[in-house]
């Protein structure tokens, strides 16, 4: 990464060039676990976005008080606080969804993506830069999650957002909504993204 990119550069970088899932391979647990449908995937993306934004802002505000050897603990405790808020909010207003997501909402605490952004960006940059970085990364994360969820839901159930789009004769590939489908889809999409990236860089040179 260049020395200190501006806020806007960080925002753009998060979406595609440094996409958290496809480029940095961060936060794979929720990527694989909740992408068997579009709705859980989007809920998860929104929760991660909320936690990432709040944590980045708070860490950025207290960055001058942080002691180096204690910073990881401070990061995780800050994140855990916001995850508790998000979890209680989901349990109150989207009860069915919070049952579906189950332990994966609390597992946002140990999502490497958020800790990595706190460490790389928020603990060194001003509040505005940190917030725009968080928003960019969240959009990238949301895009990655919905791309995987779209493939899995359409192939696995013939539906998109619960609305049938493939003909009734479509034999549901049940394996796609089961755990192995997550690994296969992410592996194939990752290969596809790498391939497109290599074509682009070859054209540029």
């Amino acid at each position, binding site marked *: 990464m260049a020395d200190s990119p501006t806020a806007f550069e960080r925002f753009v970088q998060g979406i595609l060039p440094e996409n958290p899932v496809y480029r940095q391979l961060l936060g794979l647990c929720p990527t694989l676990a909740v992408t068997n449908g579009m709705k859980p995937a989007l809920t998860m993306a929104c929760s991660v976005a909320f936690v990432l934004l709040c944590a980045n802002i708070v860490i950025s505000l207290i960055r001058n008080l942080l002691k180096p050897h204690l910073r990881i603990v401070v990061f995780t405790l800050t994140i855990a606080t916001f995850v*508790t808020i998000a979890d209680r909010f989901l349990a109150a207003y989207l009860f069915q969804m919070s049952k579906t997501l189950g332990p994966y909402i609390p*597992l946002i*605490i140990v999502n490497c993506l958020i*800790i990595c952004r706190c460490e790389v960006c928020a603990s060194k940059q001003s509040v505005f830069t940190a917030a725009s970085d968080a928003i960019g990364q969240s959009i990238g994360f949301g895009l990655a999650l919905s791309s995987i969820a779209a493939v899995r839901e359409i192939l696995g159930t013939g539906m998109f957002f619960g609305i049938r789009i493939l003909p009734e004769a479509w034999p549901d590939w049940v394996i796609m909504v089961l755990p192995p489908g997550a*690994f296969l889809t992410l592996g194939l999409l990752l290969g596809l993204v*790498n391939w497109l990236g*290599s074509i682009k860089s070859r054209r540029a040179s």
Partner: protein
Amino acid sequence: MIYLLDLMLIALTAALINNFVLYYFVGICPFVGVSRKVEMAFGMGLAVTFVISIAAFISWSITTMVLIPGAPLSSFIAGFFLPEESAAAIDLTILSYIVYIFAIASSVQFVEMYVRKFFPQLYSSFGVFLPLITTNCAILFACLTIMSHVVGVENPQDAWDLGRAITLAFFGGIGFTIAIVIMSGIREELELCDIPEPFQDAAITLIIGGILAIAFMGFTGVDSGIREALIP
């Protein structure tokens, strides 16, 4: 006898049927990152198994002693300030995530210090992995699973005791070790294969993980079969 059978089924479920990595997708980061060599993968697996058992012990104790409504310690302390009924109704479970992550982080720190001081040889084999484990989802996932069997259980007899909690965590760690060692064995062979360039490294690892997950789906239903066979 029923209790032993219960423990056995929990162990079997955690290690094979609902394998932490291949069924619940926790601990994917080391599964992709540290699975290049069999020895390294085995060291990582041992370290995770070790820490996960300690974390399960700590989190079970904290949950039953402090967090749940009517827990002995919290109601004892609150009894100094509050009348008895309201002291027994104190519910601290909303703090559970913060408490767990703090317990995991500090226990990892203590384990690292202890192992470095008293078992230098062990430290040289898996010590380097210990700091990474704090952010391993598998540990927190085990704590959360134990919590879901202790908090909010309708019938007090159904709440898990310490034995069940530790069995789940220990065999979950064993399951993690099995998965990551199989993966690293395959990846050592893969180095001799001609993989298309975009699929090298992480992509092919995930696809192989998918095939492994299909293989592990073969265990589905084993637990209910055993239960039916042994409990008339």
